[in-house]
């Protein structure tokens, strides 16, 4: 089995258009959630989100590219550029054949669906642009990354709702660890902050109208975000031989299914995924210093997640720090685990634990150290990143400092 390390990271999300901007915001506990600026927002009852601000597609892509790139693909390409440039890799010859792309997204080109349904249903148009299908398909982002950087190995997209990018990164990890690939571009993206996207979420009645306050007794639901997080996973010896800067090592991954309910989470399923990731990494619960929580800010998730962590880590649960950065960037659905992995890397590399902001009242059912409101300095060697999706699909990654 090969060791797997992260040699590049990139992002665009409500907290910033790059990794340094995002980490600075996380260190400062800044909130990227605000009033939604989208068409027909007045017909929505949920009017806040973690929207990417100050973004003009035209300043990054030409007209032809924009006709093919949905917003989720645009975000992916920008984040991938940052990650691949940081890694210093050039994909040519044998390396190109041994490198691929596995990305997560829940909805794919939701803005493209939305705009074109609007055109044919609301505006009564009988003709749509010829690129609607290649623009909206869930694998569009992965394919464009593959084309842009000449990645010719295994390339596909994983869709497991809110766990999509953790499942994707788990696949990438397995491929590099098994020797099936030398390097993988992985992570995820999502962009469903459009009228239809938000309207669909409204229907579930799990959205907050004012803020995302994970683990706080007065929480009232989740807030949706958008953006992408992309990483380069690389075989350790390969990275070492070329003198690459190593951001962290991926040491374990586990996935489980609750096999119980399509929306309600299960403590057992989540706990099995956490324990499984530790077992896969050959780590003891006592070694874990920080967990980036799924922490959606819904009562169902937060209580179940805290109970699952307590179950899986036993007495060590009272000693670890667990925070939800969704309080700052919102819930990026299929891209969320990827942006949250940045907080894990910051914990390992910089010794800074991102806070759970918006924390106002302790909840006895979430009695863990949730790093309320302010970032904290701490020396941690091992971190976990939780993702628990609708459909009862759980995916947990374990990372270690190198």
């Amino acid at each position: 089995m090969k060791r797997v390390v992260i040699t590049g990271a990139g992002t665009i999300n409500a907290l910033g258009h790059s990794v340094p901007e995002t980490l600075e915001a996380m260190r400062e506990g800044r909130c990227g959630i605000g009033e939604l600026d989208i068409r027909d927002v007045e017909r929505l009852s949920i009017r806040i989100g973690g929207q990417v601000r100050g973004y003009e597609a035209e300043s990054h892509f030409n007209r032809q590219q924009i006709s093919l790139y949905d917003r989720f693909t645009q975000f992916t390409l920008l984040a991938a550029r940052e990650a691949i440039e940081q890694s210093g890799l050039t994909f040519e010859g044998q390396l190109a054949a041994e490198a691929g792309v596995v990305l997560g997204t829940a909805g794919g080109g939701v803005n493209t669906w939305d705009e074109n349904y609007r055109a044919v249903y609301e505006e009564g148009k009988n003709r749509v642009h010829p690129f609607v299908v290649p623009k909206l398909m869930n694998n569009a982002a992965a394919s464009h990354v593959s084309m842009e950087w000449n990645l010719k190995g295994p390339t596909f997209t994983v869709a497991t709702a809110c766990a999509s990018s953790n499942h994707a990164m788990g696949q990438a990890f397995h491929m590099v660890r098994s020797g099936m690939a030398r390097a993988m571009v992985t992570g995820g993206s999502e962009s469903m902050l459009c009228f239809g996207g938000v309207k669909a979420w409204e229907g579930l009645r799990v959205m907050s109208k004012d803020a995302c306050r994970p683990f706080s007794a007065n929480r009232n639901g989740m807030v949706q975000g958008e953006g992408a997080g992309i990483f380069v996973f690389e075989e350790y010896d390969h990275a070492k031989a070329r003198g690459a800067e190593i951001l962290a090592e991926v040491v374990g991954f586990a996935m489980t299914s609750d096999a119980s309910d399509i929306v309600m989470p299960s403590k057992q399923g989540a706990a099995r995924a956490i324990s499984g990731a530790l077992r896969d990494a050959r780590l003891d619960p006592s070694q874990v210093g920080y967990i980036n929580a799924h922490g959606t800010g819904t009562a169902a998730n937060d209580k179940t997640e805290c109970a699952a962590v307590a179950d899986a880590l036993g007495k060590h649960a009272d000693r670890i720090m667990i925070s939800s950065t969704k309080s700052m960037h919102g819930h990026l659905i299929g891209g969320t685990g990827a942006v949250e992995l940045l907080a894990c890397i910051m914990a390992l590399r910089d010794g800074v634990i991102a806070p759970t902001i918006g924390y106002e009242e302790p909840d006895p059912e979430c009695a863990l150290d949730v790093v309320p409101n302010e970032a904290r300095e701490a020396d941690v060697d091992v971190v976990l990143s939780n993702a628990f999706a609708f459909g009862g699909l759980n995916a947990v990654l374990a990372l270690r400092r190198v």
Partner: protein
Amino acid sequence: MATASTDTAVRDKVIRIIADQAVLEPSDVSMEQTLDDLGIDSLGLVESIFAIEEAFDIQVPFNANEPENSEFDISSVAAIVRAVEDLVAQQS
């Protein structure tokens, strides 16, 4: 039915659409050129046809599976202009 001035209008519009796809000035597109000459690939062709349908509010009988066997002649810029003129005349 069509007058000389509308003929020119159709031609000018079609050339503008094709030039747009080829990223050229309309003055750099000549009637005898093929789409190949202009560097327009299959996606560019489909996009041009969409733009023509939108611009003239017509239906272009074109099947991307077999572009050569479509009723719509795309063998040169002149052929496309002629085909669009016919469609405009039939469908208006």
